[in-house]
């Protein structure tokens, strides 16, 4: 509608923008670049840095463009659109003045500042700063604050933009940061310097326009211009957040988020961001074979020979189990090898889970998509704690709750999710009669245009998992969550490799055993693809071949270890919980003699005489695409296209849901996989979360 648009004359160029735009957005529309410190697209407007001043001809003073809504502006007296200048002496002088004030108290310590080279203040000082300072008094100094093991503070550098305060309060939903005192004594701090409890705290490092909040683990490790930057995909949770892996030499130095509006916006959870030191520790860098009860390093040939021996038993006695972090290529190669050997005992799901067997992909995807929660008007979470299982998505749920008035109901543990919700019960039993229940959230779901019913993956890994899935789906059908343009039912996974492995068909074949059966001690040979979270206590009689990158639970029990590359060391396909196919890129070389997972199985297949029909990763992906065309659609989530498949009821084999309460899928957010357990930073976080003194905090 044209009357919703407003005409402006910016630097002599006429632009028409919606009335709700800020002047800064309008200026950007006109191609002008506006410097800023406090303004951030995803946070509320504070208007306190004054760097974004522009000239509005006719106004008595420069205008802070971030805080001026276009719709509030008036026309020139002659009725022509308001004239704005974003350049020129007037604007220049105003911004120079602001910059000079900012620099009065900002230390000149860029040479020892980790922000150096990627500092907003530094960059803008080049454009607007004076060559020298006219200030002759003492600069102010501010005590550094303790914000936990992740965020390093050098508060003297702070310019009080309050981005971090607004992030904590608005996005992360933990009101723990604030600006205390006033005037010259104003400082940013947590309450009595307690650590941040958010799973998203690392984002304040990116938000900080200066070097006041920097990464503690990364401190003094590298300069931005020395780093090789590789865009990749995170595998710490099933969201598949887009990341940039910054590496120096053969070491990953840090991990940063990459904007992907549909997945992680521009946030990253602390686990995804600070995992990188785990990539250098506890690594399996050469093959091992257990000799006389002791794991001995061997060469690949010897390891393969040992593996060949282990795989020469009857196929019914061989089991292939896939873990949480495995990439699609490895799963496919392992599965092909298993089938070539006549092995039907293959499974990628946690013990006890039975989902995904129907072959209907929509039954294990997050069909409404991560972005979809912003369109939803009511959300039911069943047996899942998104704050821990998909921390960045939880921030999006909070955003929808905050701005779109999303109503949330929870069946499962009543934990602090950073938004209000109605707790409907601890056990799946609460689903019974929910449709007719007299409660606010039941009514909201009933009347919702776009309701969302989300089942946690862990809720399905129990005896009544099938029944829970069916009951939740039934409920979704009852509230008409499945429409032609809306598929309001889905599963939130906790493991990055799960959906991809399911998409390759890594489930028990004809008459094959599932994970629980394979790990119950019946197998003679077990091939573990990065299996570290499963209970391996009953498998000691089996010969175990472990393929993985880290020496963790699985490797310690293994008889043969075949070292594979970690996610930052290979080009690999992962499918996130929405069914979005994404690829990692190689940022560094695999450690030592480690090889990509698929190549290990390809080589092994040659040794056992069942050579797999692909010689390169590309050839393998070609096979993958032929087997399942979804792998051809990179970066794409099917979303409501799966609605048709969800319209039919899910048939249940077991009887009804039990009254057993849901248990937490993730006990310790910082310790969910072998890479995290190898990370010192994650260990610090874990200790601090438990209220224990950590080495870093004690500094």
């Amino acid at each position, binding site marked *: 509608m044209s009357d919703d648009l407003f005409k402006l004359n910016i630097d002599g160029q006429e632009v028409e923008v919606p009335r709700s735009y800020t002047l800064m957005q309008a200026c950007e529309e006109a191609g002008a670049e506006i410097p800023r410190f406090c303004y951030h697209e995803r946070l509320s407007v504070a208007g306190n840095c004054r760097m974004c001043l522009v000239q509005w001809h006719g106004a008595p003073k420069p205008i802070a463009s971030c805080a001026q809504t276009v719709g509030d502006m008036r026309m020139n007296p002659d009725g022509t659109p308001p004239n704005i200048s974003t350049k020129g002496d007037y604007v220049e002088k105003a911004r120079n003045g602001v910059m000079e004030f900012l620099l009065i108290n900002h230390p000149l310590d860029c040479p020892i500042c980790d922000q150096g080279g990627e500092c907003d203040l530094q960059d803008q000082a080049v454009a607007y700063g004076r060559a020298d300072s006219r200030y002759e008094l003492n600069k102010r100094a501010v005590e550094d604050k303790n914000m936990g093991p992740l965020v390093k503070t050098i508060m003297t550098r702070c310019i009080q933009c309050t981005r971090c305060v607004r992030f904590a309060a608005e996005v992360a939903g933990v009101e723990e940061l*604030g600006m*205390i005192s006033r005037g010259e004594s104003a400082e940013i701090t947590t309450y009595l310097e307690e650590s941040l409890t958010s799973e998203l705290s690392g984002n304040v490092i990116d938000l900080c326009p200066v070097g006041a909040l920097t990464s503690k683990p990364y401190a003094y490790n590298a300069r931005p211009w020395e780093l090789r930057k590789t865009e990749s995909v995170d595998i710490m949770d099933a969201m598949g957040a887009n990341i940039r892996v910054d590496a120096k030499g053969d070491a990953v130095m840090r991990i940063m988020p990459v904007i992907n509006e549909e997945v992680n916006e521009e946030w990253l959870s602390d686990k995804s961001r600070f995992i990188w030191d785990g990539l250098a520790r506890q690594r399996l860098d050469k093959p091992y074979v257990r000799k006389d009860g002791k794991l001995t390093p061997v060469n690949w040939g010897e390891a393969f020979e040992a593996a060949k021996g282990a795989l020469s038993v009857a196929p019914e006695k061989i089991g292939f189990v896939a873990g949480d972090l495995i990439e699609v290529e490895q799963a496919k190669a392992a599965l092909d090898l298993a089938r070539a050997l006549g092995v039907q005992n293959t499974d990628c799901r946690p013990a006890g889970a039975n989902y995904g067997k129907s072959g209907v992909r929509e039954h294990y995807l997050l069909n409404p998509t991560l972005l979809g929660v912003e369109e939803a008007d009511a959300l039911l979470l069943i047996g899942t704690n998104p704050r821990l299982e998909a921390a960045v998505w939880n921030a999006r749920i909070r955003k929808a709750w905050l701005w779109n008035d999303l109503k949330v109901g929870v069946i499962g543990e009543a934990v602090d999710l950073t938004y209000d919700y109605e707790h409907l019960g601890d056990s799946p039993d609460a689903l019974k009669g929910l449709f007719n229940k007299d409660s606010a959230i039941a009514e909201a779901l009933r009347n919702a245009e776009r309701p969302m019913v989300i089942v946690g993956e862990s809720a399905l890994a129990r005896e009544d998992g099938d029944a829970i899935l069916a009951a939740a789906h039934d409920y979704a059908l009852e509230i008409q969550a499945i429409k032609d343009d809306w598929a309001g039912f889905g599963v939130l996974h906790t493991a990055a490799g799960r959906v991809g492995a399911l998409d390759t068909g890594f489930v028990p074949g004809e008459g094959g055993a599932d994970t629980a059966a394979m790990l119950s001690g019946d197998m003679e040979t077990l091939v573990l693809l990065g299996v570290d979270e499963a209970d391996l206590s009953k498998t000691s009689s089996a010969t175990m071949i472990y393929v993985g990158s880290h020496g963790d639970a699985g490797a310690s029990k293994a008889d043969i270890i075949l070292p594979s590359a970690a996610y930052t060391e290979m080009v690999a396909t992962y499918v996130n919980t929405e069914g979005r196919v994404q690829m990692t890129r190689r940022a560094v070389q695999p450690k030592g003699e480690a090889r990509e997972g698929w190549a290990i199985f390809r080589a092994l297949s040659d040794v056992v005489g069942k050579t797999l029909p692909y010689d390169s990763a590309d050839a393998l992906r070609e096979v993958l695409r032929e087997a399942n065309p979804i792998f051809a659609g990179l970066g794409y989530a099917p979303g409501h296209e799966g609605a048709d498949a969800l319209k039919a009821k899910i048939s249940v084999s077991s009887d009804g849901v039990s009254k057993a309460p849901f248990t937490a899928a993730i006990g310790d957010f910082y310790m969910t996989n072998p890479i995290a357990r190898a990370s010192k930073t994650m260990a610090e976080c874990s200790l601090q979360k438990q209220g224990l003194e950590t080495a870093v905090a004690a500094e």
Partner: protein
Amino acid sequence: MALRRFDLEAGGDSFAFKPETEPTIAFWLGKYPEDKKRSAVIPLLWLAQKDNAGWLSEPAMREVADRLEMPYIRVYEVATFYTMFRLQPVGKHHIQLCGTTPCMLRGANDLKEVCAKKIGKPMHVTDDGRLSWEEVECLGACVNAPMVQINDYYYEDLTPETFEEVLSKLQNGADVKPGPFVDRLNSAPEGGATSLLEADLFDGSRNAIASLPNLPGAAPDQPAPDAAALPKETPPTNTKRENGKTTLIEDSKPTPKPEDKPEIIEVADGEEDDLKRIKGIGPVNEKALNELGIFKFSQIAAWTPANVDWVEDFMSFPGRIEREDWIAQAKTLAEGAETEFSKRVDAGEVESSKDEGEA
């Protein structure tokens, strides 16, 4: 401004409001809707400070936060922003010494020296726990500079000597009356008033305002409006609306007939009475009456109600003659007696009754 931090040690780990404070808390909470109760944070912090011997401890702040269901950091921000919330223990008598320019020019620095001598450093509490002090910005009593605030009261016009005496008395447990410490009332001039001494400044006679307007039952005592300056017809303010038609209420009254014009007489110069001795008649009204041919009290005293209506209509002030009771006044004066008002006129106290040029 020094760094403001909680004294965690002195704050202990618990705080409770005094039972007698609860009604006040309820009063403040009652001012805001339930979901906006955090608006009461400043009053509650203030009450907590009062209940905690004059300073805000960390547990007290937390108690306020809990009551208002606010995150601690949000209350912490408020408590540290306002310097009226003290985060360190203070003495029984906490002195806030104004050091802003007017007080400084009038000797606040000397008072600071007294504090330093008698108490010590700012925010230091004397060993007997009685005194502490800090410098604050303007307390808004610059006319009485230099001044200090001790707990809730202002002590003004201090000299180092008087201030030291105040401190000594407080230290000895004696009460000291607040207010100025020189011979003056509040901020009035020292030794009594030096200007604006005329009595008629204060009796209202200068403006002939004897009472405030619009008080119930009070008769307005204003000088008659200048007839020449007035519009010819009074704008219709007293109107009633009926059937969408506006009618002047005055219209309902029959227009006075010409024969109701009061009787006029010819009076020789010097023979006329001073009509201004009637309350309600000023020089302007007198002139108008004279032009009508009314010069004597006896004429007014003899007015019939019809005459009154006619005159009121002529002079465009309906109801005023009756309200001000001109006729009774005129009767009294015609008999040679005096009224309260005429006495004042005769004494020359009523400005508006003096002849033009005289004032």
